[in-house]
């Protein structure tokens, strides 16, 4: 329910307009919140059904070790860091719809896959996404020209700094989790 509420709030035109008015808010607030909405909605789906499809072993056969799911999440997260995709998301309604749908799906799939993937899968996702964020952040900070036609250079630099900080925070946070992980969890569950 919380996920649906969050999604409804993010879809409201004034909220959407405000969050997409700057590249920084777009990349560092709206996109993470859409993932969070998907994550929360994913738990709603699994709790509302007694015999949850997402927890059943038949369903998990499609997502062995959570690997396909994490691969999809990495691709979706990477897509919405591409400057052209961000431009399209604010200029084309179809692209905007695609952004909302794919990020919510990514959030839900992340929840479905994260627990069953163990350290190797999580390391793949965290490594991939934080690396992408760090590279994108450095490029945005140093780019001599605007990479998005919809956003200003100063905004681009803030977004770059934010991406770098977020990448560092995510990387460190996961590393701490990994250090505390009991040995059996460090490998994927079937």
């Amino acid at each position, binding site marked *: 329910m919380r996920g649906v509420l969050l999604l409804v709030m993010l879809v409201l035109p004034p909220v959407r307009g405000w969050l997409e008015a700057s590249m920084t808010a777009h990349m560092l607030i709206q996109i993470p919140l859409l993932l969070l909405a998907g994550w929360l909605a994913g738990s709603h789906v699994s709790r509302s059904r007694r015999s949850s499809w997402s927890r059943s072993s038949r369903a998990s056969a499609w997502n*062995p070790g959570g690997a*396909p799911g994490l691969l999809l999440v990495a*691709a979706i997260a990477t*897509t919405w860091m591409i*400057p052209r995709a961000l431009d399209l998301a604010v200029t084309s309604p179809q692209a905007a719809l695609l952004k909302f749908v794919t990020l919510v799906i990514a959030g839900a799939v992340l929840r479905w896959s994260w627990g069953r993937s163990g350290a190797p899968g999580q390391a793949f996702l965290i490594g991939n996404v934080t690396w992408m964020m760090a590279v994108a952040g450095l490029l945005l900070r140093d780019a001599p020209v605007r*990479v998005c*036609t919809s956003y200003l250079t100063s905004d681009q630099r803030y977004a770059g700094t934010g991406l770098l900080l977020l990448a560092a925070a995510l990387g460190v946070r996961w590393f701490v989790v990994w250090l505390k992980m009991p040995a059996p969890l460090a490998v994927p569950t079937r």
Partner: protein
Amino acid sequence: MIGRSTQETRLGSVWRGIVGFMTALTAGVTLLAWATDGFAVLTSDASRARAVARAPQPIPEVSVRDSRGVIHDVLLDGSNDQSRAVIVDFIFTRCITLCSTLGGIYQQLQRAIVSQGLEDRVRLLTISFDVAHDTPDRLALHARVMGARPDVWSLVTPTTQAGADTLLQTFGVQVIADGAGQWTHNAALHIVTPRGELVRIVSLDDVPSALAAALASADSTL
């Protein structure tokens, strides 16, 4: 019996895993290909340049006022001379950042055109999108400051905001307010054939390519 059915279930689950993996891979690659125009570009500007290079865009008729106050169609230079390729850029004269860079680049282009005797094959056109402010007087002042030669470099402002918007959209220029009373816009050198088709978009730092593309488009029309 039991052993076989367990084996079958295992096999089924392996196949499901492979299908799941391929589905995720296909969806991910498709999404990334969509965002990057088939893994070719990362920015809208680059995508726009590719689209134009593949399929030339006709420039719509938009009425503009030049620095002498004469009203004419955007691609006519007042003398009805349609035998020259045109290099087009967009500015507003109050601009204190990018437009002065563009001005410098246009000065370079003008020098190259004059020194190589290309005045009858290529001309320069600067379009202001500041409809309310850039009157003929202001354009004339800007032309004087820039040292624009009337036979090579003309400056115009669309007569209506709708006209300006049409041109910005056709050329793929996005103008955004920067909150300090100025505008920011993506800038490039747009090559238009004598027939009035946008055929190439060249980045600002590539003056030789812009000139070469303009000459090629002038020749191809002869």
